[in-house]
């Protein structure tokens, strides 16, 4: 049976096949003098295939990050950026057609791939002592399975930031303490702005994910990290009152969004915040993770004067300090000398500093602090100092659940489903997805 898939899946992704085949033959010429220090090796002519979700500006930043390593070792990085990384890895695990290094969708998939034997442990590859001492403990744990490190974060993001344009009103003067306070302050200072919120959830094959982030932030600050974690683990049903309240809060946001739900569904997530800078403004607030500063109209604006952000406010004082983070978890599928060397290099503060300085990225490494502006530095601090740290919930759900979550958030936002209908449909998927 499995041989059938061996035929089918590679045909569907011939490009990756070609890329991976050329580099997957492990070299047997690891010299006796190979040192642990990155750069101490001569890897001339070797290639490392890498796939990740970064395209355009982010891809340029990643390539800038690996350029010094390429220069030091003489090896080359063959990078392919795609948003369809879940699909490629899901097809690659049973067929064995995999890149050397890849961005992993989340800790859940990392555990699946490790259990399947495809993902290589990193304990012998990295200098674990340095890695653990430099990196915030919550992040280190997310990359571990039973104490063994399988994934590292080479870049991180804080989710749930509320962006605004200080030219209209500076909300950092008296940061909103609660959600109600945020809404009240926003309405008082709305002025000529057309709506309270900017919202855009279109993202091609992955449309709907920005709306799942919304639900996660609301739930985290309404019901707390425990309910949050039980929810993505499938222990709290979708029909639970806590989840329903979170969905209803989101439905209110859609009602007060620029262009309404229809426009939100038709607008690409990276361009959704652009009306903030229009004259007159399209909206007062825009909710998105820290990486938005590298996308859309943000790079053309000045941090601090044209845009700024406040953390997602609490609905309940107890959960005010909870932070949702996300990041690009990175794993290794082939332990070639060049792949190992690149992996060692990517977790260092020097490497992560390169991307951090270019903007749009935060680092979980406490020593990577070359942030281009104060806002980024503050957000970087939120990750390294977080008291209650949770990872993106939808990324940790079973893939079938995550896909259904995206899909029903699109329907709910477009107004073709009510909150009750969406939750009932999601629970039906959950009954099936968590049973496996």
């Amino acid at each position, binding site marked *: *049976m*499995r041989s*059938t*898939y061996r*035929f*089918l899946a590679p045909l*569907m992704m011939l490009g990756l096949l070609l890329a991976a085949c050329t580099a997957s033959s492990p070299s047997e010429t690891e010299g006796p003098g190979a040192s642990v220090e990155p750069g101490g090796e001569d890897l001339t002519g070797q290639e490392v295939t890498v796939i990740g979700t970064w395209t355009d500006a982010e891809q340029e930043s990643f390539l800038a990050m690996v350029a010094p390593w390429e220069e030091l070792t003489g090896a080359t990085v063959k990078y392919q950026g795609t948003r*369809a990384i*879940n*699909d*490629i890895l*899901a*097809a690659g*695990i*049973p067929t064995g057609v995999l890149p050397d290094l890849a961005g992993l969708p989340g800790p859940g998939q990392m555990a699946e791939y490790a259990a399947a034997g495809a993902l290589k442990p990193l304990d012998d590859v990295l200098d674990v002592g340095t890695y653990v001492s430099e990196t915030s403990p919550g992040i280190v744990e997310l990359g571990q399975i039973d104490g063994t490190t399988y994934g590292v974060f080479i870049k991180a993001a804080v989710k749930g930031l509320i962006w605004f344009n200080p030219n209209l009103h500076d909300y950092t003067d008296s940061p909103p303490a609660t959600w109600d306070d945020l809404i009240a302050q926003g309405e008082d200072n709305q002025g000529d702005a*057309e709506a309270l919120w900017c919202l855009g959830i279109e993202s*091609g*094959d*992955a*449309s*709907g994910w920005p709306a799942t982030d919304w639900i996660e932030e609301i739930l985290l600050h309404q019901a707390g990290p425990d309910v949050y974690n039980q929810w993505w683990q499938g222990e709290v049903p979708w029909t639970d009152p806590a989840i329903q309240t979170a969905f209803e809060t989101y439905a209110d946001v859609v009602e007060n969004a*620029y*262009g*309404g739900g*229809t*426009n939100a*569904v*038709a607008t690409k997530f990276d361009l959704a915040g652009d009306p903030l800078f229009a004259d007159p403004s399209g909206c007062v607030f825009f909710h998105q993770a820290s990486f938005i500063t590298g996308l859309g109209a943000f790079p053309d604006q000045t941090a601090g004067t044209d845009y700024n952000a406040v953390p997602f406010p609490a609905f309940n004082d107890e959960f005010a300090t909870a932070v949702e983070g996300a990041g690009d978890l990175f794993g290794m599928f082939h332990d070639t000398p060049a792949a190992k060397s690149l992996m060692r290099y990517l977790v260092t503060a020097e490497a992560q500093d390169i991307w951090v300085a270019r903007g749009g990225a935060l680092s979980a490494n406490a020593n990577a602090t070359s942030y281009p502006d104060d806002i980024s530095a503050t957000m970087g601090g939120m990750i390294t100092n977080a008291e209650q740290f949770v990872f993106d919930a939808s990324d940790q759900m079973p*893939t*079938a659940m995550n*896909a259904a979550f995206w*899909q029903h958030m*699109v*329907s709910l936002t*477009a107004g*073709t489903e009510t909150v009750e209908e969406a939750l009932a*449909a999601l629970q039906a998927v959950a009954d*099936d997805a968590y049973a*496996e």
Partner: protein
Amino acid sequence: MEERIITAIVAVVGVPLVLVAYIWGTEQLLRVFPDGAKPRLRPWLWMLPALGFLGLFLVYPMIGTIIASFQNTLGTAWVGLENFAWFFGSPDALSALKNNVLWLIFLTLFVVGFGLIVAILVDRVRYETAAKSVIFLPLAISMVAASVIWLYMYQYKPPGAVQTGTLNAVIGVSGAGPIPWLQVQDFSLNTFALIIVMTWMWTGFGMVIISAALKGINPELLEAARVDGANEWQVFRGIVFPLLVPTLVVVGTTMIITALKAFDIVYAMTGGNLETDVIANLMYKQMFRVGDFGRASAVAVVLLVAIVPIMFFNIGRFRAQEAVR
């Protein structure tokens, strides 16, 4: 570089050599058979490599898919009809099935209808070749590129903002709209918006085939009818149309299969959201996103079962036509 040249030489010289050797080999093999059996055996031996490849790359995976559709996620245990029960019990799958029926009916009608109209109209103008080329051109564009073009056609901006989408800008002149073409689920408007893209691409194909058949009609027949006092509509209805029917059926069945295979446009334009999914996308999602080989195979089998009667109909038609000749 040298390696490549050697490879090229091996391919150019080696492949014909192998083919000649194969033919020679079959002749040697045929010597052992009596003279009477040779003519019957020879075609089979010549077809053997092709049949082998068909078996390896078409029949074998097909049987594998059918077997997988009765197995669990990774093909480790038998689950009976569970995957099919999921298919016919899932609202998403049924919506995809319904959309495929819409695609099948309307894409076929649109392509055959527009193709026929255009073929007849351009038959009577002097700049026929130029008109046909323009209409045929979209067929040469890749599906994804066509999707990107049409995403700009359908682009939506909220009322009051500058409409950058072509269609909304046009209807905006009269004060109407804007209409979120790809987001309106009522009456499956968004699915029809996608079908239009495919129609735009394939009308040229229908036109070329129908136009060729039109040229094949004996002008003396039409002349005779006109002399007998038939008007243009009667000529079309009584002579041209009946003679075109076999061609229309060929175009129609090709379009039915194209509709059942629809994937790229849906994937690139809506991602299957808001009930625009079709069977092929559902299969892709189950296979590559969820990683459920059992369900993906079940979806493939449903698609296969839907196509088989059309294939038989097509072959039957082909035989009937050959018999007439």
